[in-house]
């Protein structure tokens, strides 16, 4: 039993299932919101990769940090941001977790220690090392988990951040959500070797995980988080996963870069939700009824988030100039645009 569950307690396993169902239903709602024009800009869905979000983040503490790229809706929820506030952000509403100013690519919640939501590929890497540096500087037993896509490892910032983390033994876990493609580019067209070798130059230990098996992912991250927490230094993880949808809502699901057949086959055989469902069912830890219950709950929470976002007001006009600076110096001019501005924006 516990074998197929990778030593994960059945209750935990079930809560991971519920989480993944919520992520799936949430992203479907986001897809809908985008289709009817309530969500704008770029919108990158996590459908197919829910195992990584749930399995990597569930083992963390509230005081641990998570930082990511732009495909981060479900990670934000996994770290504790209410789905309502995530959806409201996608809708560009004041109640959004970034006040409507960030949007899909820039979800933030300092209290939940979800540090974004970054749009420059690889840009979050040095930031993560900085968060790790700060944890070490203050002698805390916290951990920072940094998500990136496979294509991000080719950025210079990856190299520099990994090296500094190794040199200073920072409490950081660098996680590649390896879905094998960066937009339309298969990873093997932009690298001679695999992700699992990308930390060799820094002597940072690597672990390869099947991200479609959330239980394996959960088990591995529970162990890694404690290793890092107890001063073991940085870790690198190659989480094998697959993107079921297009790169963003404006990109095709398949095309020259991957065939319809490939996608169908992976969706068929590697859906992290189906895999966990079957594991639990085989282990007599889940019945159809319970599953449907979970799914209904997920659907209604996603719908609730959608309705909340849809009903909530857009930012007031003054928000345009708010938060450009934290400190409006009493002397001198900070703003230059010849427009009428609220008094606080001199």
């Amino acid at each position, binding site marked *: 039993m516990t074998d197929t569950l990778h030593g994960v307690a059945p209750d935990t396993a079930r809560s991971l299932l519920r989480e993944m169902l919520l992520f799936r239903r949430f992203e479907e709602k986001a897809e809908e919101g985008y289709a009817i024009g309530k969500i*704008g*800009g*770029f919108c990158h869905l996590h459908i197919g990769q829910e195992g990584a979000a749930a399995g990597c983040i569930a083992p963390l503490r509230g005081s641990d940090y998570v930082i990511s790229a732009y495909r981060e809706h479900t990670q934000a929820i996994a770290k504790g941001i209410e789905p309502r506030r995530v959806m409201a*952000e996608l809708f*560009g*509403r004041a109640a959004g977790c*970034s006040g*409507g*100013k*960030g*949007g*899909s*690519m*820039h979800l933030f919640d300092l209290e939940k220690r979800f540090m974004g939501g*970054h*749009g*420059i*590929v*690889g*840009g979050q890497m040095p930031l993560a090392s900085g968060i790790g540096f700060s944890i070490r500087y203050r002698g805390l037993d916290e951990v920072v988990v940094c998500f990136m896509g496979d*294509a*991000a490892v*080719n*950025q*210079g*910032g990856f190299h520099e951040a990994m090296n500094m983390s190794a040199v200073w033994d920072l409490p950081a876990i660098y996680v590649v959500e390896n879905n094998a493609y*960066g*937009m*339309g*580019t298969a990873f093997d*067209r*932009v*690298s001679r070797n695999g992700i699992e070798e990308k930390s060799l130059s820094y002597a940072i230990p690597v672990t390869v995980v099947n991200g479609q098996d959330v239980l394996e992912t959960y088990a591995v991250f529970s162990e890694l988080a404690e290793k890092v927490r107890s001063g073991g230094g940085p870790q690198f993880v190659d989480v094998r996963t697959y993107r079921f949808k297009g790169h963003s809502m404006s990109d095709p699901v398949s*095309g*020259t*870069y991957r065939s319809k057949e490939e996608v169908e086959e992976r969706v068929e055989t590697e859906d992290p939700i189906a895999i966990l469902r079957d594991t639990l069912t085989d282990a007599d830890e889940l019945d159809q009824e319970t599953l449907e219950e979970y799914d209904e709950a997920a659907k209604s929470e996603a719908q609730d988030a959608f309705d909340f976002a849809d009903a909530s007001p*857009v*930012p007031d*006009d003054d*928000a*345009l*100039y708010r938060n*450009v600076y934290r400190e409006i110096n009493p002397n001198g001019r900070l*703003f*230059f*645009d*010849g*427009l009428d501005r609220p008094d606080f924006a001199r």
Partner: protein
Amino acid sequence: MAVLTYREALNQALREEMERDDDVFLMGEEVAEYDGAYKVSKGLLDAFGDRRVVDSPISELGFAGLGVGAAMTGLRPVIEFMTFNFSILALDQVLNSAAKMNYMTNGQIGCPIVFRGPTGAALQLSAQHSQACETYYVHAPGIKLVTPGTPADAKGLLKASIRDNDPVAFMEGELLYNLKGEVPEEDDFVIPLGVADVKREGSDVTIVTHGKMVNLALQAAEKMAKDDGVEAEVVDLRTLRPLDIDTVLTSVRKTNRAVYLEEGWNYLGVGAQIVSLIQEEAFDWLDAPLLRVTQADVPMPYAKNLENLAKPNAQRVIEACRKVMYR
């Protein structure tokens, strides 16, 4: 004249120059198998093969520098930045290698390279994907900057940029790619760098602008003509370096007033230099201070209502024109 989209015009220019000269190659993210993130390079992989249309890793500093190295040996790379927002990562190779190479080598080693892609904001792409990058590319000598606002200019100027023997930054716009316009069909249509274009004649006020904003300037001008009977002259700089300041001065000496319109930030936006040149070289002709219409001085917000407040619009252009006309 054929009616083409801005995207098609760029595609034609690339095609024609690659056919003309085997030393020209295109490199960037998604330019080959994906036909380009914005489909500008559609069909080029099929036409020229993966020797000359090359998908790169997401390594802006690296492939920009690789292009410079290739140019040092005489190739003529066209490096596509998916957007110029990402090119900030590559700026060191642009400024310290490309722009300075011919000088540091005392003219031994040139750098005939084009860096191209969209600049500025599209729709709700938020702070990190909406930055107008002209300032970062025009401040330093040694590199030229081209900013076409119409399909015809896009084609004629891209061909000229690829043939130019110096590094050229060529800035497009996501919101321009679908813009339709007439493009001359003559079989080698080239527009020389350094020639501004008076897109609309008028004698009451001069609107100077570049790139995407040309179309907004024309809208504003038409509206003013209809509503206020004011005839604004719209001067499209087209290339920011070399800069056809004479055409601007001629217009200002006629209208005695001018407004600079650009989509980016105000503090050292392009307009600051144009204003500084106009007041220096046409001081006695000015009947009013030169005004500038720019983006609000904030990072671009995501929310649609805020983004609309942040971007320049026709009303603001009209108000600025009225102001310099003391109306």
